């Protein structure tokens, strides 16, 4: 039987690993390669790497986080791929099928598209045609508009789109996406638990797998994502600040009766 997955999300900004809060605050927390090596040793199910850099600069400022020769995000992908012995999804700044091809060639198994998919929905279809639906993950960031309703945001949460999250998820599936990664801006870095209502609504509306993210503060928060209908549960910050984050996360899922890989 297919296992539910537990996935760390690593955020990369200008060549450094960062933690994120509300999509606005980004603290540098470490070296992008060392962290992956740690997860590999832990036998992690899968890894999502998101390059959230907003400009083109990759100056690695702090000495202790510096990786020699890495001045470009794809150099980081190469290095990650060499140490990454688990499935890897790469996202951020992907605008064309050539961008996708380049990342898959360098060792990514799947790529995610977010802002560009909203601007040019055919990108999802073209990607699915070239690389198969299973390689295309639609990443959806959900915020609240002035009326207090949920809405899809792009450009790192800065631009509202007018799209309804559940309708957009369904559209992404129709366009050819093989999976949806859901992030909820107001939960990002807050540790208040998943938005289970939205997870449930979105997972019920699509037939492709949903990866739930945003809001995990304790390992005990994971099962609620699966119970709400997600196929996989992800978190970012929790992985950096807790020891044995994989084992303890799996234990919390097993204890709740979730079928995970031991």
């Amino acid at each position, binding site marked *: *039987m*297919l*296992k*539910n*997955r537990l996935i760390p999300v690593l955020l990369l900004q200008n060549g450094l690993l960062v933690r994120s809060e509300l999509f606005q605050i980004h603290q540098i927390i470490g070296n992008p390669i060392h962290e992956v090596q740690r997860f590999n040793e832990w*036998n992690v*199910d*899968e890894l999502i790497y998101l390059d959230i850099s907003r400009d083109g600069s990759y100056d690695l400022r702090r000495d202790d986080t510096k990786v020699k020769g890495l001045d470009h995000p794809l150099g980081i992908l*190469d290095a990650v*791929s*060499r140490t*990454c*012995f*688990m*499935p*890897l999804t790469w996202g951020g700044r992907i605008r064309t099928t050539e961008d996708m*091809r380049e990342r*898959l*060639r*360098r*060792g990514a*198994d*799947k790529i995610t598209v977010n802002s560009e998919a909203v601007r040019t929905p055919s990108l999802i279809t073209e990607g*699915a*045609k*070239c*690389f*198969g*639906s*299973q*390689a295309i993950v639609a990443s959806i960031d959900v915020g609240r508009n002035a009326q207090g309703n949920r809405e899809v945001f792009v450009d790192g949460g800065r631009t509202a789109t007018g799209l309804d999250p559940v309708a957009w998820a369904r559209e992404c599936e129709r366009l050819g996406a*093989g*999976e949806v990664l859901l992030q909820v801006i107001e939960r990002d870095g807050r540790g208040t638990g998943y938005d289970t209502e939205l997870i449930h609504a979105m997972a019920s509306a699509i*037939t*492709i*797998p949903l990866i739930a993210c945003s809001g995990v503060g304790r390992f005990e928060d994971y099962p609620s994502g699966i119970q709400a209908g997600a*196929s*996989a549960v992800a978190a970012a910050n929790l992985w950096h600040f807790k020891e044995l984050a994989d084992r303890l996360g799996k234990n919390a899922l097993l204890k709740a009766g979730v079928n995970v*890989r*031991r």
Partner: protein
Amino acid sequence: MTVGIIDFGMGNLNSVANAFERLECPSFLLTEPAQMKTVDRLVLPGVGAFGDGMANLNRDGWVPALEAEVRTGGKPFLGLCLGMQLLATRGKEHGDWQGLGWIPGVVRRLETTDAAIRIPHMGWNDVEIAKHDGIYKAAKGEQTFYFVHSFVFCPEDTSVVSAWCHHGERFVASVERGNIFATQYHPEKSQKCGLSVLRNFLQASAC
């Protein structure tokens, strides 16, 4: 012992090379069919759609060279994911395409009537081993592999099946016929279970 990884523009090459590096076996990316003569083992990896995969193999002249090396020459061959599906006679992904036809059968969409079963089949799943020699030699305990696919290979003769998997329906996780091995899952992404499969492939003898 050297491994040649066929680079026909369908992704996932570094991961495969990294896995062989982990096994301390030199591997080379092959960009021209003639290079296949220089290696001891051939791997056809693939992330992508059936039609594109066959188009690339045909365009770059891989098909006759593969026939000569693998089917006539008996060089051990391992197809991964799309690389397994391309062994079929026909593929039904976004159209109807002719495959290599090395193992008669078709590639069709994974079928299920259970709404709770999500497709693509993506993630870790247990396999039921049908052939305990070959790539599963000495496999012990729970065998869990990483799958990412929406289409499955249905061979006409199921005696070639070396392992089965379940996702909505029972489908082929891997096949083996003589010097030809292939897996629907990604051994290069399946941690210890996957490494063991690749190690066994390196030990397979030529036919």
